[in-house]
């Protein structure tokens, strides 16, 4: 009787994107993206700047509404309808390149606000859950401070905790370490690695190839709005099939 979970993994993926298109005016940013992420799977998305990685990941929780195709998260399909949009967002947490913490709220209040509003928790419940996740990202002692007083690495960890407080099934990361000073990158990657080993479904845009190799189940390589490669890390790094991926890898691994 320990099969159902596996069955579910096969029958309904956590994220399912089918032939998704996105236009910015005349610019065709996503040109028919099809991607399926299983529950508990860790997918790293990489590709040159402007290839549509952010657009893709932001379309998953409807921050960037898609123009054609179908996006389903844990059985909820994104439509024009607000209720569907919110159903999907309840499943998904998101971490941004620039952290996007609320500067007028303390670290704790940052983590509490959405819990009391959209999870219907009391303040006490929300605060104790917030402290639990601040412990998990290893900065409970900063709870009373304002974001501006924290280092970039600390702010990004708060942002991760803030998302986790909503207890999402899927976590999206859009270049979470690109805005950080080099010495702070590992503290954020460590937290993400922890999260991955706890079984969280993760989609992660990053150029941290060491992290990708260690943590990812699959690497998705994008260029000019399409998915060029989608493979396990070992094959992607050792024998990329496309010339564009080879060129990208040689550039990124050069320094």
């Amino acid at each position, binding site marked *: 009787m320990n099969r159902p979970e596996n069955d579910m993994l096969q029958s309904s993926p956590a994220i399912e994107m089918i032939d998704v298109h996105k236009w910015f005016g005349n610019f065709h940013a996503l040109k028919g993206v099809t991607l399926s992420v299983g529950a508990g799977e860790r997918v790293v998305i990489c590709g040159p700047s402007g290839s549509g990685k952010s657009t893709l990941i932001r379309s998953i*929780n*409807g*921050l960037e509404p898609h123009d054609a195709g179908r996006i389903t998260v844990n059985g909820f399909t994104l439509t024009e309808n607000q209720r569907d949009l*919110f159903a999907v*967002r*309840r499943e*998904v*947490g*998101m971490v*941004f390149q*620039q952290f*996007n*913490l*609320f*500067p*007028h*709220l*303390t670290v704790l209040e940052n983590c509490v*606000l*959405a819990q009391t*509003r*959209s999870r219907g928790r009391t303040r006490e419940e929300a605060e104790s859950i917030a402290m639990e996740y601040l412990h998990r990202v290893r900065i409970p002692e900063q709870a009373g401070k*304002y*974001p*501006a007083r924290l280092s970039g690495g600390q702010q990004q960890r708060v942002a991760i905790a*803030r*998302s986790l407080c*909503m207890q999402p099934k899927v976590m999206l990361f859009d270049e979470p370490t690109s805005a950080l000073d080099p010495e702070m990158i590992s503290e954020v990657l460590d937290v993400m690695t922890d999260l991955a080993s706890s079984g969280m479904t993760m989609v992660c845009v990053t150029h941290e190839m060491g992290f990708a190799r260690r943590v990812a189940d699959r690497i998705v390589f994008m260029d000019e709005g399409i998915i060029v490669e989608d493979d396990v890390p070992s094959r992607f790094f050792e024998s990329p099939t496309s010339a564009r991926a080879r060129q990208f890898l040689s550039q990124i691994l050069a320094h």
Partner: protein
Amino acid sequence: MTSSEQATGTLRATTRLQELRRRVHFDWLDLAVIMMIGWAIWWFVDRIDGTLKYRWDWSIIPRFLVKTDLKTGATVPNVLLEGLFTTLRLAVWGLLLAMLIGLVMGMARTSKRLFLRLIAGTYVMLVRNIPPLVFVFIVVFFVASQLLTPLGINNAIARMSPEAKAWMSILFGPPRLIENFLSGLLCLSLFAGAYVTEIVRAGIESVPRSQLEAGESLVLTRWEIMRFIVMPQALRKVLPPLAGQFIQMVKDSSLVSLVSVQELSFMAMDIQVSTQKVFEVLIFTGGLYFVICYGLSLLFGYLERRALAGGG
């Protein structure tokens, strides 16, 4: 006190003095400027005294501030103080109403809905491009009189208990003048509200899109994002121009004297005409406006410092 203690004491005193001097930064140039200003003031006073041949009589000020009630013998506010109270009422209610109008219209101005944007845009456009004088008359005669009279406020007040009446006159002034007061208040807050709208709009637009996206990804509704994320940040940023606008509003409140709202400048004009003591009344009422406005500056300065202390 031992001599060494004394020495450290003097040392501390001198360093404090040095610190003060550094902070104040006073040298011979400042002295020269002060002397020139002093001389200019003396010159003006001397000339005014010489050319005006004016007989100063400051005793009229206290007489018009308070009077003795002939029936009860108690000391009660006289016209000047009544006028000051009316101005204060206009300032407090005006501030609240203008803020309310500004918040609602500011949000409408940044709304996704074209219709709301049009309403708010038209409102701001009208107020900004009509002279205040004309605006006051239009609002009072065409809008307020049509709106307030059918409301039957006077009748409603007449039916109130004496206690409620007392509260009404503390909050809105003498009941017999309440319609007049409310129409003046409406003018003032509609007028200031347009400028507050623009300030609020600028504040809302200064909050980066990424803040909204963070809110959206946390499943907050558009209203919750506005209420808990955008507005607090927007208002913090626009506290200085808001302060300026509210101070402007207090000064503009003298405009409604044109429609016989008996506020400070109305009463002052009255006294000037009846006593011919033009300058005393002018200077004194000017001082009163200064105190109210400067008080507002201090209040906003305090709010700003508090906002800065909290993350900002």
